Each structure stands twice: as structure tokens, then as C-alpha cells.
């Protein structure tokens, strides 16, 4: 009885496989994306630093993307905890463990390049993304998937131009001194904005380390110094939420804001735009989906799928309180402030990811 059942199951399975084999191209083409090839492979996402909500949402997005390809048999994750030494040993360790493809957020920059190179030379698919690590495609790693911060800057610039066609005073805040993201964004801003637009901050940007407390102090000094600020440009909107109430202490309206999205920021705008007539908000997606493109490249190379056409992630524009396009300002009060409604990961899944 058992024996016949087993036989029956085997037969059924074989039939299924045969059927699958014949009809697979059409069935799979509908389900599996083109970058998912026929070979089986394992993949690991190696984060240089995983300790904030942005990274947790990014990790969830990477996992979702890998799950779209059935031939990825295993998806692993490691957190470098902001420790370069650990990030390097994670890369070496996962390569030695026999993982086929490594997607690496190389926070430490060129410091992780030797480890990436040795993993690549050992025959692994290595895809660093978002942070420039030096080196070359095909020589130190398989493919570098960048993010176009210059495009973000240009998007902000276009919006500012539409808001203030005759020029105005801008304040640009970014993270740590000299970070390449801030410099690229500034270059993007300058491609659109001419000399009529005056940057009030010391060149190239006000340093905030993306720390809300420091942002608050920096903004206080700038507000007291500059009686007229028309637009604030910041590449991490949520870190501004604590600082914007400073304007109230000076009895001034919060000015227009061009930045990246975040639930807490959207809710802050919703709560405060009526009392602050100048408070207009424009956001680009914060880029938690950058990892998806990197995963696509890694999976395509590891499974023999078709490589994606893009090599650089372009963050789409997200909210615009003036035109309402592509979206009005969004706020989900029932969910944590530290989620990003622009993300491909659903808001509820993000809430789960960040409140783990």
C-alpha cells in the first residue's frame, strides 16, 4: 500500500515535472522575472551596518526581491554592525561557506575592496551597491550598482525652480562632512539652479551627521542667522522632523522643504502645514529599493538569467504637496514613524520589520 502510494507520488511528481518542463517557458515567464535564470544558487546580503529602520526596510526589500526567483534556494543576511573588521570577515566567511552570490552594502568604502576582490577571484558573484568601494566591474567585483544622487539633486532643483522662479535663499543639509552623497546631490542641484539661488550654508553643505540632535543645533544657528530662508534641502527628511519646530521659537513659518520621504515627516507635514503657510513639501523616494536592483544583478549572474538593463538606481519622485503628483503627502499615523511609504515593501510589512 505504502509502496504503491510512493510509486503513485513519484509518477505524479514526474508528470508534474514533465508538464512543468514543457509548459514552463510560458508559465514561468509569467511568474519569474527575466533576471531569474535556470541554475540554482544561494545568495547573501551583507550589510555594513544594520542598526536602523532604513536598513531593516532595505533588508526586507532585498529578501522580497530574492524570493521572486524560485531558483534561489537560500537567502542569508549578515550585519557588519558598523564594524569594518566584522564586515570584512562577513564577506570572507560567506564566500568560504560556499554562497554563490554576495550583495554587499560596503559602508566602509574602499576598506572592504580587498575582501570583495578575493571573493570575486574565488568565483563568486559579487555585487556591491550604493556606496562607492573603488575598483572596477569585472576586475574587483561582478557589477557595482550605484544610486543616482545627482538625479535626486536635479529633481529637488526642478521643484525649487517651479516654486521660486525668480530665485531665493536655500539651505542645504547633508550627513557627515565630505560625504559623497551630499556632494553628488549638490552637483545635481547646481545643474538646475543658477546664481539667482543663493546657498546660505557654508560650502558644500551644513554638516549634520544625519543626527537629529546635531541637525536641531545646526538649524537653530542657521535660523537665527538668516532672516529669510525660502527652501531647506535635506537628503534625510526624517532627521529634520525634530528640528523644524525650531522655526516656531522664532515665530516664523517652516519654509518649503525638498528632501527624501519618511512616515514621520509626512505626518509632521499633515499636522503642521495649516499653521505654517510656507511649508510645502517635496520628496524623492528614500531609496530602500536600491537593493532590489543589486539583488537582480546578483541573481541574474548567479543563475544565468538576463542581466537588468539598468546599472544605476534612480530614486523616483514621491510626494509633492503643491501639485499632488506623483502623490500627495502621505501619513500613516497607525504605523511607526520610522517607515518609508515610498518603499516597495508594504507599510505593514515594514512596521513588522522595524518593530522586531
Amino acid at each position: 500500500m505504502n509502496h504503491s502510494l510512493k510509486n503513485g507520488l513519484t509518477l505524479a511528481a514526474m508528470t508534474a515535472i514533465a508538464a512543468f518542463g514543457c509548459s514552463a517557458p510560458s508559465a514561468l515567464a509569467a511568474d519569474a522575472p527575466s533576471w531569474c535564470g535556470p541554475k540554482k544558487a544561494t545568495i547573501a546580503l551583507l550589510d555594513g551596518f544594520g542598526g536602523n529602520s532604513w536598513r531593516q526596510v532595505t533588508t526586507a526589500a532585498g529578501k522580497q526581491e530574492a524570493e521572486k526567483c524560485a531558483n534561489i534556494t537560500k537567502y542569508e543576511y549578515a550585519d557588519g554592525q558598523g564594524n569594518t573588521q566584522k564586515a570584512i570577515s562577513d564577506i570572507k566567511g560567506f564566500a568560504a561557506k560556499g554562497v554563490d552570490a554576495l550583495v554587499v552594502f560596503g559602508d566602509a568604502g574602499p576598506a572592504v575592496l580587498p575582501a570583495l576582490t578575493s571573493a570575486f577571484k574565488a568565483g563568486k558573484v559579487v555585487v556591491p551597491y550604493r556606496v562607492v568601494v573603488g575598483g572596477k566591474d569585472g576586475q574587483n567585483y561582478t557589477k557595482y550598482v550605484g544610486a543616482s544622487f545627482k538625479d535626486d539633486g536635479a529633481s529637488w532643483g526642478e521643484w525649487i525652480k517651479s516654486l521660486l522662479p525668480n530665485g531665493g535663499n536655500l539651505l542645504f543639509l547633508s550627513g557627515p562632512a565630505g560625504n559623497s552623497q551630499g556632494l553628488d546631490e549638490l552637483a545635481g542641484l547646481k545643474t538646475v539652479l543658477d546664481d539667482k539661488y543663493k546657498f546660505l550654508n557654508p560650502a558644500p553643505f551644513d554638516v549634520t551627521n544625519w543626527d537629529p540632535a546635531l541637525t536641531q543645533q545646526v538649524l537653530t544657528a542657521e535660523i537665527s542667522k538668516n532672516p529669510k530662508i525660502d527652501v531647506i534641502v535635506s537628503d534625510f527628511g526624517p532627521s529634520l522632523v525634530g528640528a523644524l519646530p525650531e522655526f516656531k521659537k522664532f515665530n516664523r513659518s517652516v519654509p518649503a522643504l525638498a528632501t527624501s520621504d519618511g512616515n514621520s515627516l509626512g505626518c509632521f507635514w499633515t499636522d503642521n502645514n495649516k499653521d505654517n503657510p510656507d511649508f510645502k513639501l517635496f520628496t524623492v523616494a528614500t531609496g530602500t529599493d536600491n537593493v532590489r536592483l543589486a539583488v537582480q544583478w546578483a541573481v541574474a549572474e548567479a543563475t544565468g538569467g538576463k542581466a537588468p538593463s539598468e546599472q544605476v538606481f534612480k530614486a523616483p519622485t514621491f510626494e509633492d504637496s503643491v501639485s499632488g503628483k506623483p502623490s500627495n503627502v502621505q501619513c500613516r499615523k497607525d504605523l511607526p514613524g520610522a517607515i518609508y511609504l515610498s518603499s516597495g515593501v508594504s507599510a505593514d510589512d515594514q512596521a513588522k520589520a522595524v518593530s522586531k
Partner: protein
Amino acid sequence: MSPAVHTMSDARERRGFLPFPVAHGFVTVLFSTVALIGACLVFAPSSLSSGALAGSLPFAAVIAIVGLGQLLVVQQGGFDLAVAGGVSLAVVISTHFPDGDNAKLLPAVLIAASCALAAGLLNGILVGFIQLNAIIATIGVNALLYGAVFGVSGGVPRITTPLLAEIAGGDTFGVPHSVYFAIAALLVVSFVLKKTVVGRRFEAIGANPLAARAVGLHVRFHQMMAYVYAQLLCCLAGVLLAGITREPTAFQGDSLLLPSVAVVVLGSTSLLGGRGFPFSTVLAAFFLNQLSQFALAVGVPYSAQTIIQALALGFGIGVYSVRWTRNTKRRANV
């Protein structure tokens, strides 16, 4: 060697134009602060506007409170490097546990205080009783505290509760509430240190533990308690910071470690222990904060801002160190 110097430092008081004795260090830090305010008036008047002060004083208050904690430890010849972890833990407990619910704020603050008590006791036992090097012991405890920070928060910031934002971030009579907290902490620390038996014993032990032991004081107990007081003050600073910053990160204490030591040194308390100067420490916190506001308001590049601050700090430390070395030599020769 050091005890002789620090009991001698009591003699370094000026009775000049004021009717009561003023510590030499206090005069120096007061003079520096007045000079800085003068410079602000000339070069960056905006940094002294009421709005700017309302925005920056809360951070000065936080530095002052952390500085008072560090002062007590330094008085016992130690260092508390667990300041960063202590503050960060208080921040995450007071934001994550209530999660926007005002009713849970008080329990959260009590939990934060209990954690601070435990961390302080651990530091104190390791340093006071087991006699570990203070730097090594507190670095270890700091790592433990950061483990707890990750355990509570997962590294994710959370928006502070409205009640805490009002208590810590609000203002009464135009003065930010956090400043009142700092003044209260200063008065308590000064009173206990200077006017109570416990406080006098505490200073005496810091000045000369051997002599204190010889007269029968509980040296180890007082040394341990210094770390407990420090962590409790860090907890207060952390809770305030959580209210001042709307969405504080899980690592908010990191940037406070250096200033906490800097204000103690600028306040002229010797790193070898002994007499403490709470008023000078709090004034130094205001000085340090105003200095960064000055640099920001002048609008110099970031590199120059850090250089200005480092120079001021180096100058402050240099002034005391030079005097101190000469004094030692002179006294050693006698």
C-alpha cells in the same frame, strides 16, 4: 604626590573683589565665557538671540548634567566611559517603551532609572571593590549597555511621547525646562558635596584615599557610589534628550562622552581626583555649547568649526595643566 597637590588647591582661592572665596578655576571659566559672549556680540550676534538660545540651551543643559556625573567620578580619580551607553539606554527606554503613550512614560522612566542604578553599581563594584582600572571596566560596561540599547530598540529610533516632549522640551517664563533640570541637578550636587557629611567625606576620599582609609572612612563604598551617581545623572540627561529631540537615534549618547570630560577639565577639576567644582563644570558646559553655536553662526566651514572647538579645549586644558605641573614641582622641591 597628588593628594598633597589637591588639598593644597584649596588654598588657590581668590578673595579679591568678591566678598566670598572663589575658586581659581571658576574665575578662569567665567572670564572665558564672558570673553566668548563678547565675541558673539561682535561677530555673531544672532547666536545670542532669544530663539537661538532657546534652541541651544537645552543641549547645554544636557551636557551640564552629564558633566556633573562625570565630575563625581573624576573626583574619585576615575573615569566613566559608560556615559555614552548610559545616556543612549535612557533615551531608548524612555521612547520605545511608552511608544507614544503618555501613561507609560512614568514606568519607562523608572525602568530607565533602575537600569542606570544597575549599571552604576556594576561600574562601581568593578572599580571600587574589585579595583579594576576605571577606563577598562567602564568600557566593558558601556559595551553591555549598548547591547541593552540594541535589545530594546533594534537600533531603530522612535518618536518621543508628547508628554515627555512637553516636560523636557517645553519652556516656562521663556526658559527651556531642561535648564531648570540642570540647575536643580547643580544645586543638589553642590549642596550634597559641600554642605553634608557624606559630601565632605566623598571629597576627602577623592583627595587622599589612603588618609581617608586611615581615619576609618568607607573608601570603596564612596568610590562605588560615584559611579552610581554618574549613571543616574546620565539617565536624567538621556530622558531629557529624548524629550528635546523629537526622534532621537539609538546612539544619542555617543556625542556626549568627550564633552562630559571636557567640561570637567575646563571646570578645573583635576583628573587625578580630589576637590570638585560643580558650578564651574556647569558654566563650562554653557561655554562649550555657546562655542559651537558661535562657530555655526559665524558660518565657518565644518573643518574650521572643529578646529576652533579643539583649540578652545586645548587652551582650557593647557592653562590648568601648565599651572598644575609648576605647582607640583615647586611643592616637590620644598
